[in-house]
């Protein structure tokens, strides 16, 4: 066995000092993530953390795993690309409610549908923190503190849990930044669960939503004996959820997305086809049936190859 050093949570933090406001919930998310990585005992270079843009999306710089600070709203698309190119990596995407549900809302739906084996840490403070306090899709319609919407948005907020369930998410947990140990446990569970998992973190913005300090009193652990495992069951159970239920709320069993793998055709395959075509009286299995575009096994034959075969049988 290889003698790999045991990494502590601290080893998963970089030496860059976060520039979040003192008291920001995102500090605890960083702590929880580092703890989760230590618990998973994976080498740093086997983890990739991809974010969008926002205060929350600064996360990768503060960890010591592979990190990429992407475009606003595109973390999930980018993370899926990383995972498809390197299925061996543990891929984590992270970002805020604006990043993931506003400008990147479409990717949220399709990531749930596609079910690539990766974990999304959605740091929800119901505000665009980085651009100084505008309403996000999770903001209550009557929140009037934003200078952009001084009379409130007047439009109904999105419930990430219900949205994710409706789009076919495979795992959904909710944690609170004020409880980093519990949050670390949820992150580990999400990473270990095959397919796409969402860790929805209530992470207060103490600067633009000081009232979120009271979330400590609002959060409550799910009283269900076990997570829901069927989409319909979860939708019924959480139809009237107050948004503060924490724990693993849904754990489905859809198989993770596997890109269709086509057998690569070798020269021997082509030779065999050629032989069959020459011997066969029946054109139905002959190469005269070859045409441009993806073939049965998804192999696209170059025009020259088709001409070669078709001429050979002519």
């Amino acid at each position, binding site marked *: 066995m290889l003698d790999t050093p045991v990494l502590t949570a601290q080893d998963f933090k970089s030496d860059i000092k976060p520039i979040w406001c003192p008291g920001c919930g995102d500090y605890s998310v960083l702590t929880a993530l580092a703890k989760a990585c230590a618990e998973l005992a994976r080498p740093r270079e086997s983890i990739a953390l991809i974010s969008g843009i926002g205060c929350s999306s600064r996360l990768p710089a503060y960890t010591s795993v592979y990190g990429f600070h992407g475009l606003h709203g595109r973390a999930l698309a980018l993370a899926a690309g990383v995972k498809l190119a390197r299925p061996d990596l543990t891929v984590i995407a992270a970002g805020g409610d604006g990043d993931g549900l506003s400008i990147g809302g479409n990717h949220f739906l399709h990531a749930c549908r596609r079910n690539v084996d990766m974990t999304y840490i959605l740091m929800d403070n119901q505000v665009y923190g980085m651009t100084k306090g505008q309403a996000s899709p999770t903001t209550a319609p009557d929140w009037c503190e934003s200078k952009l919407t*001084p*009379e409130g948005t007047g439009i109904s907020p999105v419930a990430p849990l219900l949205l994710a369930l409706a789009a076919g998410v495979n795992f959904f947990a909710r944690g609170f930044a004020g409880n980093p140990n519990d949050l670390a446990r949820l992150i580990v569970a999400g990473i270990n669960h095959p397919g796409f998992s969402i860790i929805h973190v209530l992470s207060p913005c103490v600067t633009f939503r000081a009232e979120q300090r009271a979330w400590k009193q609002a959060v409550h652990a799910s009283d269900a004996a076990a997570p829901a495992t069927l989409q319909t069951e979860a939708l019924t159970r959480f139809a009237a959820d107050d948004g503060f239920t924490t724990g693993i709320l849904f754990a489905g069993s859809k198989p993770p997305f596997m890109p269709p793998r086509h057998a690569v055709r070798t020269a021997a395959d082509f030779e065999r086809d050629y032989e069959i075509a020459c011997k066969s009286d029946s054109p139905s299995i002959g190469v005269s049936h070859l045409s441009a575009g993806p073939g049965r096994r998804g192999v696209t034959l170059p025009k020259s190859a088709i001409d070669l075969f078709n001429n050979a049988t002519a």
Partner: protein
Amino acid sequence: MNNISRIVVCDGNEAAAWGVKLSRPDVVAVYPITPQSSLVEYLSKFIADGELDAELMNVEGEHSVLSALQGACLAGARTYTATSGPGLAFMFEPYVRTPGLRLPMVASLVNRDMLSPQCVWGGQQDVMTVRDAGWIHMFCESAQEVLDTVIMAYRIAEHPEVMLPVNVNHDGNYLSYGVSRVEIPSQPVVDAFLGDKNVNWHAALDPDRPMAVDPLTGGADAEGAARFVAYRQSLCRGMQNALEVITDVHAAWRCASGRAFAPLVEEYRLEDAEIALVTIGSMSGAAKDAVDAARAAGIAAGVIRIKTFRPFPVEAVARAAGKVRALGVVDRAVSYGWNCGPVCQEVQGALYRTGRAIPVLSFIGGLAGADLTGAHFTRAIEATRQALATPPEALAPAPVWLNARDEGVLR
């Protein structure tokens, strides 16, 4: 004077918001981004306070912002939005369709440098990247000019001989947040100046003339392509017409407001100048100070400031450049592949009209919000003077990078 309602001290973002409010748009759509955010927050305050009667749509991203405004404009509304850097990039798909649709929109670009590397600071790489999309581009030097240009932009955009969208550019950080004295024109002056709203006479929802806008123009056959070319030609005509319209509108605004701005190109101390710096945007103030200092020291330098960048005022630039024997062009963006700044590249194109191949130096500075100080311009003047003695073909084919690590060394 009653053409001014009040005098305030405000930053360029607030000045833009005042210009918009006075122009009475019907629909404003936004997505916040640094350094634009406060601009639209001022507008939403005007709306909340009942001072501006407009719909403000707070949508989920810039792609939706401009799409929503295209809908509003097609339905006959006067529209406004503002964005910066990455926001403009995300807006690109509807952005490139707007000129072809001949929608007379006005939008502020609060200029920001482009990623990567990550950067939230000022720079003009955002606008320079879209310079050939078909929008009119004007660049402001002061908060007052921002306010006045926003108002003028509506009259230019909606002019029947133009009918093109206008971007009013103001530099992020220096203009967006820098405060100065600003005169607010009175509402009746602006109302009279803009006249009756007739934003979209060519494609507005009209019960007498229902039509499907922008169906497929035709196949790749000769007729389809020819029709497509006809649209392109008409867009080019609108752009070229804009040169005269912009000039006329500035003259009319001077009468209405009492304030004069050069419409296309501003010539500063160019009479008897040996060399000139070419500038664009907020850097021009520091360049003029450096020129004043140089003049005091007996150096015959001047400034050519580009106000209108699209349509590019080829004749006006050639005329101004024709007065000097060497140019130093200062850009806050890069033209990759030309290894110089975009303004420098275009000025060289205009120089061809003069038939004189004078030395032109490219200076690139003010990237990522870096300050372009009087000292930078003083050194640029010095380097341009030295180039006087150098034949153009012997000049280094590389830009002089200001604010670089080795900035002490001017090659």
